């Protein structure tokens, strides 16, 4: 009987292998031109090429660096402002319409302004990552504060816990699970937007590598870069999943 970690690894490996096999069958079966859909082997070769000349490593480092800055600022700003909005109803009522107006605008649309004001480089990408992660965290936090079970607040009031103290003793602990979940979701969304962010206004990073490969008509390099983006996204999700479970256990959800 395998333990659950081995089981997950097994399912992951089988699932990936399945895709690779299907992919190869598609390529050989349809006799596709290499530039239309490269075979798994060519993609691996391209991967090797990009690693050996250092492009891949430079790209990954640049992207991860921007991602960390963008994501962490989104999380801190989202939780901080979310708490304020949740705790002060008037603030929430006045800002909610504006938030819902700005939120649906694709982060990429802001790029012309960002590039004009702050130039090309890391900033545009970081701004996009920030916008992608900020709104979900903000709104989840604010709504979680509103949704705290009134019994807890009654209990706090009954036992003489003051309003300020209640925020730290009752409200913040009560919303931990929802915040952890929103961080998980925001991580995925931010990583996806990172790529689109790097396609406009940067000269490095994985998104830029995609544009570069497209311009050079190197579909094998293109797919290789996409693969790396997917793998990093996969690993990030794994990591934050572990973090979320750790938070829940500490929170008392020991089942």
């Amino acid at each position, binding site marked *: 009987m395998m333990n659950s970690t081995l089981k997950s690894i097994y399912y992951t490996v089988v699932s990936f292998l399945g895709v690779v096999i299907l992919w190869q069958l598609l390529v050989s079966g349809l006799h596709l031109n290499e530039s239309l859909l490269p075979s798994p082997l060519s993609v691996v070769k391209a991967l090797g090429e990009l690693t050996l000349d250092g492009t891949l490593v430079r790209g990954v480092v640049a992207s991860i660096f921007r991602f960390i800055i963008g994501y962490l600022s989104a999380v801190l700003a989202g939780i901080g402002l979310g708490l304020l909005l949740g705790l002060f109803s008037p603030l929430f009522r006045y800002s909610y319409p504006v938030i819902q107006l700005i939120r649906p605008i694709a982060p990429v649309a802001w790029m012309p302004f960002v590039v004009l004001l702050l130039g090309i480089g890391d900033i545009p990408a970081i701004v996009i990552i920030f916008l992608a992660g900020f709104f979900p965290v903000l709104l989840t936090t604010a709504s979680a504060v509103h949704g705290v079970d009134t*019994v807890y607040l*009654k209990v706090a*009031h009954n*036992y003489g816990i003051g309003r300020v103290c209640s925020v730290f003793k009752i409200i913040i602990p009560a919303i*931990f699970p929802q915040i952890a979940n929103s961080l998980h979701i925001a991580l995925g969304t931010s990583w996806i937007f990172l790529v689109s962010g790097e396609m406009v206004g940067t000269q490095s990073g994985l998104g830029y590598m995609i544009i570069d490969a497209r311009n050079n008509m190197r579909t094998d390099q293109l797919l290789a870069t996409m693969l790396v983006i997917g793998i990093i996204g996969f690993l990030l999700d794994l990591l934050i999943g572990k973090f979320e479970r750790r938070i829940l256990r500490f*929170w*008392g959800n*020991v089942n």
Partner: protein
Amino acid sequence: MYIEVNNVTKQFVSRNHGRDEMKTAIDRVSLNIEKGEFVCILGFSGCGKSTLLNILAGFEKPTDGTVKIDGTEVAAPSTKNIMIFQNYGLLPWRTVEKNVELGLEKKGVSKQERIETARIYTELVGLKDYARRFPCQLSGGQQQRVAIARGLAVNPSILFMDEPFGALDPITRTKLQDDLLHIVKRQNKTVVFVTHDIDEAVYLADRIVIMSTDPGRIQKIINVDLPHPAVRNSSIFNDIRDRIYNELYSISQQPLEYYL
């Protein structure tokens, strides 16, 4: 008189068929409770008994009338009058012992004292071996015991209990009734206990306040002349039980008001 309820009325606005209406939850309720008394408020669902309890405990303000406890008008909840809720109200992210410590986390109580007091009350309710568990790992009855331990740990004068055993199975319920009675009689606590279970009321109460529904009014107050602890289903027990049942049954015979 320890708890004085004077002509308390509670009204609130509710939406009915698209129109806002004034509903009266409780209407001119007056009641006096002595120190150390165990009073049950008994009635059907919707008779306003929980609303009355919330007003007594200071969670809500009456529309009219006053509530005084020990001579002072009730303005807000206090640690002297602890409420025990039907859904326990335990903080899920805290262990049993940390939940019991909740009311003791204030200036004037040293860490030593806090831990020790919490330990005493956790043991008192029979959960010594569960101190490090989380609420989600406990049964309903155990969770309610934790809530009771938490309440007792701050040494309140009054316990307000809002159908505390309603969510539990009959066997657990009778056990908790026994334990509760034993503890509150020994510590001379005043208890106001809301329930819709006649047997529970007869077993626990010194006096039973029967409330009618819609609007909530006091129908009758009955003295329960039973020795404590009572013997459930003894003939005197059943006599009193039948009297209460008839009172409540006559309430349900009252015509309902229809809104045209």
